[in-house]
């Protein structure tokens, strides 16, 4: 069989303010299963999108079998034989149509020509043929909406194979799957390699999966390729993690020590309704900053939101100072003095259309009211106090929050909770999209919040931040807590080891 090679040379890709890919050389050949690994923001997805034609602004050259090609749109990518299955399978499927139509979608859109009628029996039989080839048991007449997530993924893979595919890119395919479903997927991938003789590129955070199924891997770091390595029986998770991380980060922030008191906030066996968080138990002491580490999609945000009542919990209890709290809605949580600084600041944190002073009082407007009538003066005074205290840069208290910078908006969100006198603060990626200076100030704020005797939970995928600000760390993976670490006694590599699903060595609990 003929071998195909897809080669990137000196590929770079910039987004406003960031260089997502920097002079990347990457080669893949048909007939191999190749893994692409790297921490969050290393550029894996960006590179895949370049190959799939979803990033038309790249610079550099692409070669197919040594011949220069240009992939500026998804159509060109398909023409070159590159098919991608994105992590969010639902974005690529049409739930109201049957399995057969979804598998044959490319064919129905691109190869119909002047033909006006749909040839149903042909569509179904061709779709069935593809499924047979892949050894997938699935009724082609079934509606996609009725399928499980794993089955939907198979439909997408079948669609990719149906239209001449030479390079199949799988972006985090196993993240939402159960162990059994993962095994099925691996079997499918092995079948594909054997019978179709195509290249499969696997992007994953689950390093132990890489060891199981891939023959070689490419590690990426900060938009650059670290290197290409074969996978042998001697390759270990630890070795791959080291390639992903390289030198350790140095954080300029130094935490001022805070006296840590007794246990005040406890979460026991918390499980989210859709199992996005499973059996999580943790506690926070007075004055303590506890980190929740883990990669994107590990369930950190979901954990924060479940505690706060924004996601429904299935089981578990939340205890503050020995008393069990009933939290069904965020409104309940706020009444119990729990605060959440959410990840999506503009969507969930601030009311961008409202003024700074209203935002700073939104969670405790009652305190500024006289028989339900808002006392504007009190609100302004409160706002002025927090503007001074937190160093929020705004021309006036009545400025619309939309016009503030990201860091200042985040300070407004934090100020909102400070004026509500909360005692448990949950931060979910509070430094996302803020510049270095503002980041440092936010750290200082969090440090002060803890020093005043409050309890803080700090969720982030940036390990350097976790190491700088916290006292203790829980590492999450797949919705569960994998490890509890003492910040002073741990390091970046250990956190990463657990973040990618590494297990504790036997006998060390």
């Amino acid at each position: 069989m003929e071998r195909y090679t897809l080669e990137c040379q000196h590929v770079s890709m910039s987004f406003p303010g960031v260089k997502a890919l920097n002079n990347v050389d990457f080669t893949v050949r048909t007939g191999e299963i190749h893994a692409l690994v790297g921490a969050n923001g290393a550029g894996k997805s960006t590179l895949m999108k370049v190959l799939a034609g979803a990033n038309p602004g790249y610079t550099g050259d692409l070669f197919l079998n040594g011949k220069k090609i240009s992939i500026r749109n998804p159509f060109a990518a398909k023409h070159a034989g590159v098919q991608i299955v994105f992590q969010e399978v639902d974005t690529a499927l049409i739930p109201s149509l049957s399995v057969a139509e979804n598998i044959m979608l490319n064919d129905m859109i691109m190869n119909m020509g002047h033909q006006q009628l749909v040839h149903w029996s042909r569509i179904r039989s061709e779709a069935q043929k593809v499924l047979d080839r892949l050894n997938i048991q699935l009724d082609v007449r079934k509606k996609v909406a009725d399928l499980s997530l794993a089955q939907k993924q198979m439909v997408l893979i079948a669609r990719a194979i149906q239209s001449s595919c030479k390079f199949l890119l799988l972006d985090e395919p196993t993240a939402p799957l159960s162990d059994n479903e993962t095994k099925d997927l691996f079997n499918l991938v092995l079948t594909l390699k054997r019978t179709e003789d195509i290249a499969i590129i696997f992007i994953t955070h689950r390093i132990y999966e890489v060891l199981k199924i891939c023959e070689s891997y490419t590690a990426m770091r900060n938009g650059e390729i670290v290197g290409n390595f074969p996978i042998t029986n001697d390759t270990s998770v630890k070795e791959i993690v080291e390639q992903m991380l390289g030198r350790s980060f140095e954080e300029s922030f130094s935490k001022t020590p805070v006296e840590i008191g007794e246990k005040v906030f406890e979460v026991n066996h918390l499980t989210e309704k859709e199992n996005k968080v499973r059996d999580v138990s943790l506690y926070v002491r007075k004055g303590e900053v506890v980190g929740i580490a883990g990669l994107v999609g590990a369930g950190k945000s979901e954990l924060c939101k479940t505690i706060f009542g924004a996601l429904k919990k299935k089981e578990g209890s939340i205890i503050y100072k020995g008393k069990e709290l009933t939290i069904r809605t965020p409104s309940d949580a706020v009444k119990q003095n729990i605060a959440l600084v959410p990840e999506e600041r503009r969507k969930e944190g601030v009311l961008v259309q409202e003024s700074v002073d209203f935002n700073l009082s939104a969670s405790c407007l009652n305190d500024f009211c006289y028989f339900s009538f808002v006392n504007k003066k009190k609100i302004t005074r409160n706002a002025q106090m927090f503007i001074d205290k937190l160093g929020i840069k705004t021309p006036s208290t009545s400025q619309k929050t939309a016009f503030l910078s990201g860091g200042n908006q985040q300070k407004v969100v934090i100020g909102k909770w400070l004026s509500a006198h909360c005692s448990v603060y949950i931060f979910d990626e509070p430094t996302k999209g803020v510049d270095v200076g503002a980041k440092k100030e936010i750290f200082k704020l969090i440090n002060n919040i803890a020093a005043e005797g409050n309890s803080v939970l700090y969720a982030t995928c940036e390990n350097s931040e976790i190491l700088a600000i916290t006292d203790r760390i829980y590492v999450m993976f797949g919705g569960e807590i994998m490890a509890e670490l003492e910040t002073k006694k741990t390091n970046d590599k250990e956190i990463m080891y657990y973040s990618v699903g590494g297990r504790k060595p036997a006998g060390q609990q």
Partner: protein
Amino acid sequence: MERTIDSQNFNSRTVFQFLLNWAAVLALLVCVLIFTTMLGKAFFSGPNLVNILRSMAITTIFAIAATVTMAPDGFDMSSCTLASFSAYIFVSMYLWYGMSLGMAIIVCILFTMVFYLVTLFLILVCKIPDMLATCALMFIHQGLGLWYTGGGAVSAGMSLPNGNPPARRGLSDAFMSIGQAPMIIIIMLACVAVAHVFLTYTKHGRYLYAMGGNRTAAKLSGINVTKYRFLAGMITAIFIAIGAIVVASRNTAAQIVGCDNYLMPSLAAVFVGLSVGGAKKPNAFGTLIGAGLVSVLENGLMMCSVPYYILPAVKGAVLTLALIAAYASKKEY
């Protein structure tokens, strides 16, 4: 919407923004100016001003109801059909069952609030989008209302659907005065004032606007969004009932689908009012301006002997222009 203030474009932009913010007021002034030059004293006179205020009163009251619903980003297409139903109840309580005027008013308001629970049940419990739920309810209101009256209007001198004679023969002066100047104008201004104070100066009003701006953020700030959507609905129901009472009094009867036609001008009034003073959200004062614009246009065009059957097109054009102003400047997210 993210805009940074750029010093170079600052002046032209502020002028443009100013014009946009006061476009509705300017349009109102321009209309008055044009009609005055064309019609002279016949248009620009005390009696005609009262005329205009009287004709805009009903539109304004329904528009205030819509304003309160739309503040937390809700929507109600069935407000005016419900008002027709409430008007049947109001007049029938007075004529058929001989209730006092005050009692009939109270029953009418309570009925509207209770019936509005159906609307809120569909929206809050069944989670149907506001637009679709109220669209379905329009037909339910119309059908149930006519079933109640036996298919006809409720007016003086007519017997009950079961053939019994009504308890009262006619309407009292007090009943009729509700729909006449100055009472009708006072009611309108009172509704605007109450809605303005509620939305601008109470924490409940601020919460409703917070929800309208960003429901997720409002919820995560600890605002009980379901409770406040319910509250907005109940207040809307009260304004709908007031509208129904005024319409019935003005028509001296509860006519078949007597209020249904006020939906479109009242929505137009709210959308025209959105941008007034740069509020960028449904607000009571803007709504009053919007209703004024619609009524001045209607009044002036009538006087220019434009046939009455073309007027819906004019009102529709105002609504369309207001919608363009509200949506065309929106940036895609």
